[in-house]
């Protein structure tokens, strides 16, 4: 029987992986991907609690998180080539 605790545990593990990735890697793209892992861990938790409480507000929040992540990725995608072209600000 799957309980909410299973999902909380999984979400925590994923979040920790994301944190470790941000703190240990220096490649800015991998750092951004680690942030995506953390966002996804939060999304999983939101969906789980939405399901547990029977309230779909969590889904709406996940939707917003996805919109923010998409905006961030779009910004990052055009930012990275500029950072790499001028490496003195330590981006890469």
């Amino acid at each position, binding site marked *: 029987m799957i*309980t909410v605790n299973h999902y909380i545990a999984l979400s925590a593990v994923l979040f920790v992986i994301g*944190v470790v990735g941000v703190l240990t890697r220096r490649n800015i793209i991998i750092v951004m991907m680690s942030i995506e*892992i953390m966002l996804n861990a939060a999304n999983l938790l939101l969906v789980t609690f939405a399901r547990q409480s029977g309230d779909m507000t969590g889904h709406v929040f996940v*939707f917003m998180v996805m919109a923010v*992540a998409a*905006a961030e990725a779009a910004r990052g995608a*055009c930012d990275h080539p500029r950072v790499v072209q001028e490496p003195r600000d330590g981006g890469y």
Partner: protein
Amino acid sequence: MEILMFNLLGGLSVALALGAIISKRPVNSAINLIGTMFCLAGLFAMQDAHLIAALQVLVYAGAIMALFLFVIMLLNVREKVGAESRRQPYWQLLAVVSAGALFVPLVTLGGGKILKFKEAASGFGTTAAVGRLLYTDYILPFEIASVLLLAALVGAVILTKTKIR
């Protein structure tokens, strides 16, 4: 059946996320992360969040990761071998400490209260239900999100243009 699926998808997502932050080449880590997104989409679908599962594949695995992969491939052209230097040791210490701090509640989770799922109401998580919520109660955040995306779009265009006429 459910527990088997959870173990499979959850284990796979953790393994792929680990692969994403460990692997040396950015392309490999991007591929691993796409796998993680897929597994999470499966987990969303297991919790009756059908729209969110489809959006997870469409937005995360389809669009965001594709953008990352695109950037990595463009940068790969002038990638130097071993370009990545190690962080300072205290960063790694901080990583270990923060990971440990987050694992404390995880360990105590087993001893705590066990929250069980209720039976989902019919129509839970479908496109119609979530859409209705989005367009009634949460219309303002929804519009703000759309403005945010528009701002990101315009910003991206301006950032990449070297000369603006």
